[in-house]
């Protein structure tokens, strides 16, 4: 039954897309984010639906899309270079079969990120893409949120509709994504045009979704989620009109909600400080040390899945308090083939220094560009481009959240994040186009002529706020 519903949904989407070809791009975004193949039982998981959607999206852009202002930005070139470099390391990978499997989805993620900005040439397209990403991800987030409310969740036990919790369904990754999209949902509450504002139904859905997003780190008990939430909170202080009031309200809300949190959640969050007693955290540090040493011997990386060759051992301290005495037990734990547990070390181990430098430059450049766009447009009137500043700021917050979450989770090629990078590039190009049009003045001609030349062109038409 669910299979037929998914197929019917996609067919309706394709039917819409025949009139509005951009919807093919959105259908790929939906398939890549939610991965409905993994939620189906019979029919859907046999069809390469992701490849079909990408093919349709690319073909529609190639044949009917507006390519008049198609230009590769520096970050698109960098992602292309990273794609080529990853292909090279896959050819000489230490584990060729496993590396080829990972390469099978990494290339799609990178190619789509390079392609995406070409299609996002209007405000509505950027908004639609971000909304499709969020609503697709919210299928998982709402399930997780309701189950957390009902059962309280649990580490590794919160059922997010799939048995194999890889990709976006992995607990730390979905926690990071859930927290990262909060600023973008806030953006829709202020500037959304797909659903005209103010509308109480839009507000209700957005606030309920934000609540579900906050519940995800509690339900999955992923510590990454808590750290990401703290980062978003601190970054939000920067834009708050009354930061002290905001801080006080958050503190009161935090204190009130503390007794309502599951005990297992508070116990697990407590291990952030006491990392030596926690095997998960100690394993990470041991793997990172191994990766650092591996990179010294293999500066060009060991290819995808290089972690499989690691052999680590570490001392775990277990402290037990009995009355006034504290008993410390030290045990040596030996382990092998442990994952990187950090995107930074994942890049360093798999792609070596060149791959790591390319990857980090792509992300840091994104933060810097969004900061520039934010500052350039923040003083504008609501009808004169303030939305650009707010969208840049929301994307920047989401990106910082990813970079902080990446410290503890291996998600260097998470496609959801590369789509955010694609929107960032599109916002940057759009903002530059507006500034170019505003700064252009004809050398000759009277005032009337100047006004005529300064007529709104593409991207300058005031939009409903």
């Amino acid at each position, binding site marked *: 039954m*669910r299979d037929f*519903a998914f197929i019917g*949904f996609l067919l*309706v*989407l394709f039917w*819409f897309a025949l*009139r*509005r070809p*951009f*919807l093919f791009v*959105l259908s790929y975004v*939906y398939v890549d984010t939610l991965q409905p193949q993994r*939620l189906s039982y019979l029919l859907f998981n046999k069809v390469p639906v992701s490849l079909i959607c990408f093919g349709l999206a690319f073909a529609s852009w190639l044949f009917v899309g*507006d390519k008049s202002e198609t230009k590769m930005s520096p970050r698109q070139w960098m992602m292309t270079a990273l794609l080529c470099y990853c292909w090279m390391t896959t050819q000489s990978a230490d584990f060729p079969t496993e590396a080829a499997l990972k390469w099978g989805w990494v290339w799609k993620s990178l190619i789509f990120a390079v392609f995406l900005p070409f299609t996002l040439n*209007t*405000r*509505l*397209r950027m908004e*639609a893409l971000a*909304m*499709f990403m969020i*609503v*697709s991800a*919210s*299928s998982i987030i*709402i*399930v997780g949120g*309701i*189950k957390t409310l*009902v059962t309280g969740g649990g580490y590794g036990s919160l059922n997010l*509709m799939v048995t194999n919790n890889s990709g976006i369904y992995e607990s730390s990754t979905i926690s990071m994504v859930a927290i990262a999209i909060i600023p973008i949902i806030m953006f829709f509450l202020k500037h959304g045009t*797909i*659903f005209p504002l103010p509308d109480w139904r839009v507000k209700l*859905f957005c606030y309920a979704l934000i609540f579900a997003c906050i519940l995800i780190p509690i339900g999955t008990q992923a510590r990454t989620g808590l750290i990401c939430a703290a980062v978003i909170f601190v970054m939000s202080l920067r834009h708050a009109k009354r930061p002290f009031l905001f801080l006080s309200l958050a503190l009161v809300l935090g204190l009130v909600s503390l007794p309502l949190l599951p005990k297992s959640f508070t116990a697990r969050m407590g291990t952030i400080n006491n990392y030596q007693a926690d095997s998960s955290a100690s394993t990470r540090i041991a793997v990172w040390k191994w990766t650092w040493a591996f990179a010294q011997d293999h500066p060009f990386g060991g290819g995808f899945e290089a972690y499989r060759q690691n052999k680590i051992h570490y001392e775990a301290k277990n402290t037990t308090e009995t009355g006034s005495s504290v008993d410390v037990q030290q045990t040596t734990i030996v382990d092998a083939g442990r994952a990187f547990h950090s995107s930074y070390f994942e890049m360093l181990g798999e792609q070596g220094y060149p791959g790591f430098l390319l990857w980090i430059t792509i992300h840091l450049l994104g933060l810097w560009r969004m900061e520039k766009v934010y500052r350039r447009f923040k003083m504008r009137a609501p009808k004169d481009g303030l939305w650009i500043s707010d969208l840049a700021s929301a994307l920047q917050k989401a990106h910082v959240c990813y970079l902080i979450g990446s410290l503890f989770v291996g998600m260097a090629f998470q496609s959801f994040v590369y789509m955010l990078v694609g929107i960032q590039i599109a916002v940057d190009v759009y903002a530059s186009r507006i500034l170019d049009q505003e700064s252009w003045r004809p050398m000759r001609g009277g005032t009337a002529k100047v006004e005529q030349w300064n007529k*709104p*062109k*593409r*991207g*300058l*038409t005031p*939009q409903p706020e």
Partner: protein
Amino acid sequence: MIDTLSLALTHGLLLLIAWRLFSRDDLDDETGNAGKPKPKPRRWGR
């Protein structure tokens, strides 16, 4: 039950978004010329 409810809600919303985009001309062109027939190119001298 929760899974189906959530999937139904979000997929319904996605269709609603697609429907709203379907009727928006500024999806493809912000100049306001979308949907208007392009003027026929005139031949030289006429």
